[in-house]
């Protein structure tokens, strides 16, 4: 399941931040590597919520800095 979550996370990140999926890796940092400004981070959280039909705590979610950690964070919400 983690693999499926990873794929969907990468798809959402690519769509929201206008990137190619190939540019996005587990260790990619949203702000430093992927150029997510703080404004986009908030909408990225909403985009994850939409994709996975979950609700996330905004403050906790904004502490997640990398794509890999986002996959883990979201997978925990799906359990």
């Amino acid at each position, binding site marked *: 399941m983690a693999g499926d979550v990873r794929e969907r996370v990468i798809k959402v990140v690519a769509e929201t931040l206008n990137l190619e999926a190939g540019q996005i890796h587990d260790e990619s940092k949203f702000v430093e590597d992927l150029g997510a400004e703080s*404004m986009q981070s908030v*909408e990225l959280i909403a985009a994850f919520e939409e994709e996975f039909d979950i609700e996330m705590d905004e*403050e906790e979610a904004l502490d997640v800095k990398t794509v890999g950690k986002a996959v883990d964070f979201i997978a925990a919400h799906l359990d």
Partner: protein
Amino acid sequence: MSVLSRFMEQAKQRSLTVVLPEGQDDRIIAAARRMKDEGIASAVLLGDRQKIEAQASALGVGLDGIEIVDPAQSGKLDEYTAAYVKGRDLNPNVARRMVKRPLYFGGMMVAQGDAHSMVAGVAAPTAFVIQAGVLTVGLAEGIRTPSSFFLMIIPDFQGQKQKPFIYADCAVNIAPTPSELADIAIASEKSGRKLLPEEPRVALLSFSTKGSASHVNVDHVNEALVLVKQRAADLKIDGEFQADAAIIPSVGAKKVKQPSEVVGNANVLIFPDLNSGNIAYKLTQYMAGAKAIGPFLQGFAKPISDLSRGASVDDIVATTAICLAQV
């Protein structure tokens, strides 16, 4: 009349609406009641209706005359979602999720003219309020940097009682670039225009007065001055000034030989960075016994305000009155 009472009285003369997104908070409910009872503003509380009603009843506060809106159930959700995505490449379902969040719903109420102002921050961090503001009401024309200011009331300034000053930016931008500093100065002038009894005269502060010292930090302030003059030619702004030259006429006259509408008479003080701004406001507050009211957000297309997490009911009412004075 104190400066605060003046804004309260001003608010009573107008019937304005404030949206309070943190509707379940005890202090927010009590503040909404007080605003209604004293005629300062009509408040709209956002949140789950049952929870707000239960909370109010536990507090012994009646809610008559106070509107409660649950963003998730609101008939305005479609309209606000459409307005939120307008002109942007954003999935409407994602936008809808954004707009259901109280801070964003409140921001859209202001953006769409259903409320005059939004006051939030007893639970949400400042950064969240700023983000919601940028994404909903947006920034004022020509401004790209949200910032903040304090209204400082000096009990006895050179013989003048209760003298108000605007200090900026003492809370948001840590190391503003010249362009950001220019935005802070322009937004602060606008805030001063709404809140000060006199015409705003803006000083860009430094450790140097008109080239008395050479340093990249001084150049930085002067670049900001050039940018302000390009962006808003009619502003009364000057610098770089040391603080004494900015506010004391005799010192200003001694240190500055060229004509200036600001020197010695500034009432809007722009600090070069957050170090100096934050230190200055706290020293003024405690050493001069000044009242520091704020921080207020500025630079937005419509007035929105942050609250500190420790804000009292009095603070919330006062902040709302001052925020509405900017409408």
